[in-house]
C-alpha cells in the first residue's frame, strides 16, 4: 500500500486520487487532503529544515498557525515560498519542494549549525559580527543571508491576476466552527445579511477534527447540514478559503479569498486571490483556540506535534502519524486525543505530569510523569520519560502529541488597541476590550466545550443584532469542563524549543532575561521569539510564562506582545490587486497624444500626464539636437506645444475678483475684462506656492491656470479658502483642466498662423499682449484665446473643448506649414523659459519667497492675501537674502549644472561659505553657451561679479559671471510685437 499511514474514516474523498510530488518524489493523496496530511499518509514526516540550526522538522500543527512545515509550492513563475503544507489544499499535479537546505532535505550541509548551537544563541549576530567593521557588508551579511531565511522567490513576474472587492453586511461571522455556524444560522434565520468567512476549505472548524456528537449526528455531519442550510438562504454569503486578516476602523474588515489556490492554475478570467474590504454593522468573532505545546529537550523532531493536530489528522484526514503514539498533556483535552486515537486502533500511551491525571482508560497513563528527551535523527523514534518515582523509561513511538492547554484565538480582538486579560481557570488569555461592534463567541472567548460554543454563538448573534424573544433550543452536545494544571516546560531542559520557526529555545529566553531584557516586546526583538510567518501563534505563551517565572511575576503582569494585522501572511499581489505594471497609477493622455505619437515624439511622465518631451527628426542622434532645433525654429519662425496639462480652474461669481485678491499676493480687482494677469500664490507662511495666470473673461468670470504638478493641491487650497476662510463670498470653483485642449503657438509668425484659424481679428491693436477673449475658430467652434507667452516670443494660447483637441493640432500644423511650424516638447519649453528668466517648479521649490524670486514688490500691501502677513516677517527680509539671478560661464564651453553652489571667486569652498545655488540650467541655443538660473545672496547687487560654481558631487568647478536672468529679449519687445 502506497499510503501506508492512511486509516479508515475522515472527510476525504477516497474516490478522487491526486498525484503530487515533494522534492521530486511521487506520492498520492485524496481530494480533501492538505499537502501535510497527504505526506503524513505516505509516511513522510520530515518536511523542512529550521531557520537557524537547520534541524529536521515536520508539521507541528494541522492549521494556519504552523511554524515548521513551510514549502515552496508550484514551480516557475507561480512558485510561492513559505507556503504552509498544513493549509495547502492538495490538487492533482501539485509540486512542492522543501526549502532552507543546502544539499538534500535529509542531509543538509548547514545542519552543522546545530552542532555550533552553543555559539548561535540569542543576540549572536549582534555580538559576533562587530569586527572588522568593513566585513559586515562584504562578508558576514551575504553569508548570513544565504544561511538563514526561509523560502526563495522565483524572481519571475507573477502571471496571476489579483482582484479587490467590497462587501457590505449586517453581520460578519469570522470562523465556521460550532460557534460561528450557530451565530450565522441564528442571524440568517432572523433575516440579517450575513457573511460567514472561514480560512479553511471545509467549513465546520474543530467539528471536522473531533468525534463528539451534536444531537444524534456526528459534529462533522451537523456542520455539513448546517452549511447546507445556510447555502440555501439568499441573505447568507458563505466564504470558505477566506481569511479575515484584520479588524480595522468603523466595522471595516480585510479578508483574503483564495479563489484559485486549490487548483493548479486559475481558471480563464478568474483571479488567484481577492482582497475583500468588508463593511459590516456587527461582527461575531468565532476564531476558535490554538493548542500550545510544552517545551522539553528535542521537542522539535518530525513526528512531535500538538495533540489536537494528531487527532485532526486521524479524524478528519484518516491518517495515523505513527502507529505507536505517545501523548504528553497537562490537561484533560489531551486525553480526548488519546481516546480518539485508541478508538482508531492506534497504540497509545499518555504521559501526564499531573499526579491526579485521569486513569480510568483502557490504555496506559503515566501520571506524574514528564517527557525529558526524544531520539531519532530525521524523525521521532523514542521518547525518554521520567516517571513519578524518578525512574526513567524509554517509549518507542513514531508520533508524540503534546498539549499544554488551549489559547483562545484573541488576535483579531486586539487590532484596535485591545489587550486580552488572564483567565486562571483556563491558564490562558481571553478577550477583554473589543473593537466596536464585535462580540466573541466559542473557544475564542474561552468557552471550550461544544455546547458552550453553540450557545455562545447563538447568543453573540442575538446580542449583535439586538434580537428579542425566546432563544431557540440548542442541540445537545458535550459540555466538559476545562481541567488544566499549567505546565510550560520540563525542568532542566536546555535544547527545548519554544519557537520552532525562529529556533528560539528555553535557554535563549533565559539568556535574554540574564542580559537585561525585561519588556516582553524587547524579548521578542532580541530572541526573535514570535516573529516571522506564524507570529508566534504556538510559541508566545511559553515564552511569556518563562519570562514571568524568571522575573518573579505573574503572566498577566508580563503581558502579551501586540497583535497586529494581518492574521496570516498575505501575498503582496493581493494587496496590489490590479495596480501593477502599467496600471500602477493612472496614465493621462493629452488631446494631442495620438498626433504626437505619429510624429515620433519622445514622452515624459509629468504628474501622471504623458507629455511630448521632444520630437526627434531623421538624422538627429541626440536629444540636444532635437531640442536646440525646436528652440531655434520657434524663435526664428513659429512653434506649437500642447499645454493642456496646466491646471485650469474656473472661478465664477459676483465676488470672483475679491476671491482672487485673497489667493494671489498681487491685485486682481482692477483687472479689466478681456485681460490676463500673472499671479503668484503664497502659502500662509509667506513661501511661494504656485504661479500662473488669471484671465478675466467677464466681470464675474475668471480662468485661473496652475502649474501641471500643482493643479490638484492649488484647487484644494482654493476650495479651502473659499469654504473655510471666506464662506460668505459669492464665488464658485470648478476644475476644467480636462475640459479644454490648449496649445501654445509661439514665435514671430504665430499671429500669421492663427489668423488662418480664428474667426476674428487678432491684430496687435485689437488683441494686444495679455489680451484674452472667448472666440470661435474654424467657422464657429467655441474657443478661448489668451495672448500670453512663456517663451518670450509673440505667443498665444488657444483652447478648444477637449474633443476637438486632436483636430485643432492638425489644423494648426496645416496652417503653419508655410512657416515651417515646429512642434516642440517640454525640453524646448524649459529652455525657452530659462532663456527668458521665468521661474518654474525648480525655483518655486517650497523654500523661496516672492522676494527671493525677485517679485517682492508684487506682494500688495494695500489688501490682505494669503501669506501676505508672514511674508513681511523679519526672518524672510534680511539684507543678504537670496535673489534670483542668471549665470553664464566665463569660459563659454563650461557647463553650469543645477545643484551646483556659488562660492566667492577666491576663498574657501565649504558649506560655511556658500553663497547660493543653481536651480535650473540648460544649453541655450539662442546664445550658444550654457546658462543657469540661480539664487544668490544679495544677488540684485552683484551683477557682473565673477564667482566660482562648484559641485564636488559632479566634479564641477568653473568660473561664472552673475547676470540678469532675462537672457533673451530683456525689454520684452518680441512678445509685444
Amino acid at each position, binding site marked *: 500500500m502506497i499510503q501506508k499511514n492512511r486509516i479508515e474514516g475522515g472527510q476525504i474523498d477516497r474516490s478522487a486520487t491526486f498525484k503530487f510530488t515533494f522534492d521530486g518524489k511521487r506520492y498520492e493523496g485524496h481530494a480533501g487532503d492538505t499537502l501535510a496530511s497527504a505526506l503524513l499518509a505516505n509516511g513522510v514526516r520530515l518536511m523542512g529544515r529550521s531557520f537557524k540550526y537547520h534541524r529536521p522538522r515536520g508539521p507541528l500543527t494541522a492549521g494556519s498557525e504552523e511554524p515548521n512545515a513551510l514549502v515552496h509550492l508550484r514551480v516557475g513563475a507561480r512558485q510561492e515560498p513559505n507556503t504552509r503544507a498544513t493549509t495547502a489544499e492538495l490538487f492533482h499535479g501539485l509540486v512542492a519542494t522543501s526549502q532552507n537546505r543546502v544539499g538534500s532535505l535529509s542531509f543538509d550541509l548547514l545542519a552543522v549549525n546545530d552542532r555550533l548551537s552553543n555559539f548561535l544563541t540569542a543576540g549572536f549576530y549582534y555580538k559576533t559580527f562587530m569586527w572588522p567593521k568593513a566585513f559586515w557588508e562584504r562578508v558576514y551579511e551575504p553569508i548570513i543571508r544565504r544561511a538563514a531565511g526561509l523560502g526563495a522567490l522565483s524572481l519571475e513576474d507573477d502571471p496571476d491576476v489579483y482582484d479587490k472587492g467590497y462587501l457590505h453586511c449586517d453581520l460578519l461571522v469570522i470562523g465556521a466552527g460550532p460557534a460561528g455556524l450557530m451565530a450565522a444560522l441564528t442571524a440568517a434565520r432572523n433575516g440579517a445579511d450575513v457573511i460567514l468567512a472561514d480560512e479553511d476549505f471545509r467549513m465546520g472548524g474543530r467539528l471536522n477534527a473531533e468525534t463528539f456528537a451534536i444531537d444524534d449526528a456526528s459534529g462533522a455531519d451537523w456542520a455539513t447540514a448546517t452549511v447546507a442550510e445556510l447555502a440555501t438562504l439568499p441573505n447568507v454569503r458563505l466564504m470558505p478559503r477566506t481569511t479575515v486578516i484584520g479588524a480595522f476602523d468603523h466595522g471595516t474588515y480585510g479578508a483574503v479569498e483564495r479563489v484559485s489556490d486549490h487548483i493548479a492554475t486559475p481558471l480563464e478570467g478568474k483571479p488567484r486571490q481577492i482582497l475583500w474590504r468588508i463593511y459590516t454593522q456587527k461582527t461575531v468573532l468565532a476564531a476558535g483556540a490554538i493548542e500550545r505545546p510544552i517545551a522539553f529537550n528535542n521537542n522539535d523532531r518530525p513526528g512531535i506535534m500538538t495533540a489536537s493536530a494528531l487527532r485532526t489528522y486521524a479524524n478528519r484526514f484518516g491518517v495515523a502519524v505513527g502507529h505507536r503514539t505517545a501523548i504528553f498533556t497537562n490537561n484533560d483535552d489531551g486525553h480526548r486525543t488519546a481516546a480518539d486515537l485508541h478508538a482508531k486502533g492506534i497504540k497509545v500511551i499518555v504521559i501526564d505530569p499531573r499526579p491526579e491525571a485521569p486513569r480510568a482508560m483502557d490504555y496506559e497513563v503515566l501520571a506524574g510523569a514528564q517527557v525529558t528527551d526524544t531520539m531519532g535523527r530525521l524523525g521521532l523514534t523514542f521518547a525518554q520519560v521520567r516517571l513519578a518515582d524518578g525512574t526513567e523509561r524509554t517509549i518507542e513511538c513514531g508520533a508524540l502529541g503534546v498539549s499544554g492547554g488551549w489559547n483562545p484565538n484573541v488576535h483579531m480582538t486586539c487590532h484596535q488597541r485591545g489587550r486580552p486579560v488572564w483567565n486562571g481557570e483556563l491558564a490562558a488569555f481571553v478577550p477583554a476590550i473589543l473593537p466596536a461592534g464585535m462580540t466573541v463567541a466559542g473557544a475564542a472567548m474561552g468557552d471550550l466545550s461544544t455546547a458552550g460554543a453553540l450557545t455562545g454563538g447563538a447568543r453573540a448573534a442575538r446580542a449583535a443584532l439586538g434580537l428579542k424573544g425566546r432563544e431557540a433550543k440548542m442541540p445537545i452536545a458535550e459540555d466538559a469542563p476545562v481541567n488544566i494544571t499549567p505546565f510550560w516546560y520540563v525542568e532542566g531542559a536546555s535544547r527545548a524549543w519554544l519557537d520552532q520557526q525562529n529556533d528560539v529555545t528555553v535557554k535563549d529566553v533565559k539568556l535574554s532575561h540574564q542580559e537585561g531584557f525585561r519588556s516582553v516586546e524587547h524579548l521578542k526583538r532580541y530572541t526573535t521569539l514570535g516573529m516571522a510567518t506564524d507570529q508566534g501563534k504556538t510559541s508566545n505563551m511559553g515564552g511569556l510564562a518563562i519570562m514571568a517565572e524568571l522575573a518573579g511575576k505573574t503572566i498577566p503582569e508580563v503581558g502579551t506582545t501586540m497583535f497586529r494585522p494581518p492574521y496570516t501572511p498575505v501575498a503582496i499581489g493581493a494587496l496590489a490587486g490590479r495596480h501593477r505594471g502599467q496600471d500602477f497609477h493612472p496614465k493621462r493622455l493629452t488631446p494631442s497624444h495620438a498626433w504626437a505619437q505619429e510624429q515620433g515624439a519622445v514622452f515624459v511622465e509629468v504628474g501622471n500626464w504623458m507629455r511630448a518631451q521632444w520630437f526627434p527628426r531623421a538624422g538627429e542622434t541626440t536629444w540636444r539636437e532635437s531640442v536646440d532645433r525646436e528652440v531655434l525654429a520657434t524663435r526664428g519662425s513659429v512653434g506649437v506645444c500642447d499645454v493642456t496639462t496646466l491646471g485650469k480652474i474656473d472661478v465664477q461669481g459676483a465676488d470672483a475678483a475679491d476671491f482672487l485678491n485673497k489667493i494671489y499676493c498681487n491685485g486682481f480687482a482692477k483687472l479689466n475684462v478681456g485681460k490676463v494677469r500673472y499671479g503668484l500664490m503664497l502659502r500662509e507662511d509667506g513661501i511661494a506656492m504656485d504661479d500662473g495666470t488669471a484671465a478675466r473673461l467677464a466681470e464675474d468670470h475668471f480662468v485661473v491656470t496652475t502649474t501641471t504638478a500643482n493643479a490638484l493641491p492649488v484647487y484644494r487650497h482654493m476650495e479651502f479658502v473659499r469654504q*473655510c476662510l471666506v*464662506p460668505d463670498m459669492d464665488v464658485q470653483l470648478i476644475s476644467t483642466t480636462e475640459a479644454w485642449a490648449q496649445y501654445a503657438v509661439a514665435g514671430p509668425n504665430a499671429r500669421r498662423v492663427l489668423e488662418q484659424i480664428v474667426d476674428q481679428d487678432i491684430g496687435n491693436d485689437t488683441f494686444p499682449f495679455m489680451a484674452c477673449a472667448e472666440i470661435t475658430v474654424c467657422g464657429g467652434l467655441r474657443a478661448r484665446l489668451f495672448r500670453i507667452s512663456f517663451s518670450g516670443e509673440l505667443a498665444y494660447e488657444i483652447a478648444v473643448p477637449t474633443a476637438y483637441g486632436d483636430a485643432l493640432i492638425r489644423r494648426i500644423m496645416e496652417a503653419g506649414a508655410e512657416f515651417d511650424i515646429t512642434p516642440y516638447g517640454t525640453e524646448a519649453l524649459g529652455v525657452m523659459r530659462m532663456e527668458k528668466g521665468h521661474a518654474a517648479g525648480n525655483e518655486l521649490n517650497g523654500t523661496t519667497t516672492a522676494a527671493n524670486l525677485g517679485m517682492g514688490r508684487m506682494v500688495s500691501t494695500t489688501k*490682505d492675501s494669503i501669506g501676505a502677513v508672514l511674508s513681511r516677517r523679519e526672518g524672510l527680509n534680511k539684507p543678504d537674502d537670496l535673489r534670483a539671478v542668471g549665470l553664464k560661464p566665463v569660459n563659454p564651453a563650461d557647463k553650469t549644472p543645477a545643484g551646483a553652489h556659488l562660492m566667492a571667486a577666491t576663498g574657501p569652498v565649504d558649506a560655511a561659505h556658500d553663497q547660493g545655488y543653481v536651480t535650473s540650467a540648460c544649453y541655450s541655443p539662442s546664445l550658444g553657451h550654457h546658462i543657469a538660473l540661480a539664487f544668490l545672496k544679495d544677488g540684485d547687487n552683484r551683477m557682473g561679479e565673477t564667482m566660482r560654481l562648484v559641485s564636488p558631487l559632479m566634479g564641477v568647478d568653473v568660473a561664472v559671471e552673475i547676470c540678469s536672468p532675462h537672457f533673451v529679449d530683456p525689454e520684452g519687445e518680441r512678445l509685444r510685437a
Partner: protein
Amino acid sequence: MIIDHPLLGPRDSSEFTYMGDARLLERPDPEGADAAAAFYEYAYLRDNPAGWHRELWFHEAGDRSWLVVTRNTMTHEISCVELARDVARAQRQSK
C-alpha cells in the same frame, strides 16, 4: 475609517484628503495690532492631542466639501461631522 458626510452619508476615508487641526478656520485678523504674532501661531503652532480632535478633511474624490470632523485620535471614533463652511459662518456670526 468611515466619515458620515452631512450631505452624502457614510463615505470611506480613502475618498478624503486630510489637512489637520480645524483651528485653521480661525484665521487671524490681518489688520490686528498683534497680527504678526497671531499669524505665526496660526501657521505654525498646532495641538496634537491624544483624544478628541477637530480636524479638516477634504472630500477630494467626492463633492469637494471641506468637512470639520471631530475624531478621537486614540480610537478613531468620530462623534461629529460638519460642513466646514457652516462652521466658518457660525464662527463669523458669533464674533
